[in-house]
């Protein structure tokens, strides 16, 4: 094929109606979706010859590590930088990631993920950003390996957009912030605030709103075992609920 053909769903602002435009650019080796969108900016003309505003989308590192460029590509949410053109059926359909409010074109507002991370207290409480002179706590290599998987979450939002329970119709926080609770609760000092984090996800919109469709783990570009985290948190909240109802056992910290 001598051209790359695209159909892009556009939307001028959050309140306007979406519409579709078709574009095509000359084919060349090693194009990906971001590089095609970059090329389009040089000459933003639709296939019908109309000169239009360049497509708006988010991108930065283009190494699938910053999480910016996730969008719906041929109906599947994924980072655009690692979506190689040769592997896609044409015309390639580009749409904004569903479930998030559209800002403009393919740009969506993912700030709710930040709010969720605040809500679940996804951090380790430290006295201050200074050296205490104490060495690092020991962490078994096997525990490290499990934790490292979760620490690579880049808040791209792909897992949320594929989640049937997540969206404007519900207050479910989704897999990504839940996995961070799993991560923080496993840290040698992070576990001091385990109860607080668990209580945060035991409320409305928390862990128990998961419907176990498990699309999240299938679409995660980083292969993070999100459903394992959800299972582990299930166990932690079960124990926590028993403690809340029947009283603490001897503190184990």
């Amino acid at each position: 094929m001598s051209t790359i053909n695209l159909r892009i769903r556009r939307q001028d602002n959050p309140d306007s109606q979406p519409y579709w435009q078709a574009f095509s650019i000359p084919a060349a080796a090693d194009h990906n979706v971001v590089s095609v969108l970059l090329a389009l900016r040089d000459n933003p003309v639709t296939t019908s010859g109309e000169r239009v505003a360049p497509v708006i989308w988010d991108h930065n590192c283009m190494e699938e590590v910053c999480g910016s460029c996730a969008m719906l590509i041929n109906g599947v949410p994924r980072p655009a930088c690692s979506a190689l053109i040769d592997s896609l059926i044409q015309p390639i359909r580009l749409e904004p990631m569903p479930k998030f409010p559209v800002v403009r074109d393919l740009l969506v507002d993912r700030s709710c993920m930040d709010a969720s991370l605040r809500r679940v207290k996804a951090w380790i409480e430290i006295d201050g950003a200074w050296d205490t002179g104490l060495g690092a706590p020991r962490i078994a290599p096997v525990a490290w390996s499990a934790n490292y998987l979760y620490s690579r979450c880049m808040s791209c939002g792909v897992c949320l957009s594929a989640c049937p329970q997540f969206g404007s119709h519900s207050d479910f926080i989704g897999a990504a912030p839940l996995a961070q609770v799993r991560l923080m609760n496993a840290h040698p000092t992070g576990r001091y605030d385990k109860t607080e984090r668990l209580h945060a996800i035991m409320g409305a919109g928390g862990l128990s709103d998961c419907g176990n469709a498990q699309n999240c783990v299938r679409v995660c570009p980083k292969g993070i075992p999100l459903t394992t985290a959800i299972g582990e948190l299930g166990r932690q909240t079960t124990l926590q609920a028993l403690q809340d109802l029947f009283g603490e056992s001897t503190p184990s910290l």
Partner: protein
Amino acid sequence: MRIANPHLLLRRLHSLFGLLPVGAFLVFHLWENSQSRFGAAHYNGEVVAVLQRLNYLPVLEIVVIALPLLFHAGYGLVILSQMRAEPRRYRYLRNWLYVMQRVSGIGILLFLILHVGMTRIESIWRVTVREDLFGHMQHLLTQPWIFTVYVVGLLLSVLHLANGMATLGIVWGLTTSAYAQRLFGSVCALFGLLLVAIGIHGLLGFLS
């Protein structure tokens, strides 16, 4: 005492009631009705009559079966309202089961209205239903559309229970790793097949 997180407790109660007593009752009910195989006399005299002789049976039926079931169904509808499923976009088994769990919930609810109405409710004013349940069921199930509805109701109920058990394992934290979830899912699937076999066996028993 203050309940710290009523939301989680409600969800867990919903999950628990699905297994106990509702799921357990389904297993018992299917086993009970598989006795139809041994003929009208045995079924009416040894199986149904024994149950009917129990003291405070209506209380048991209401407290142990009806109320948990109603809670499970009612709260299930609340959960159902959160679904925005895309089974065609994400063609994964678990996503399909997620949809089916909710669809089957509605199906079971409709089936139960029919089923309970035609049997337990009808028996309140029709003595013949009470005295010869086997005959009553035989009369019903020989009509092809009712038989079909019962088979569908059975399949949906078993699917709902078996898949409900598999997700219950995740929800309560019994199964965490992908391997454990898959393994327990297979166990639940086998259990479901067994229940279907028992159920079909029982339905066919009424036709003999």
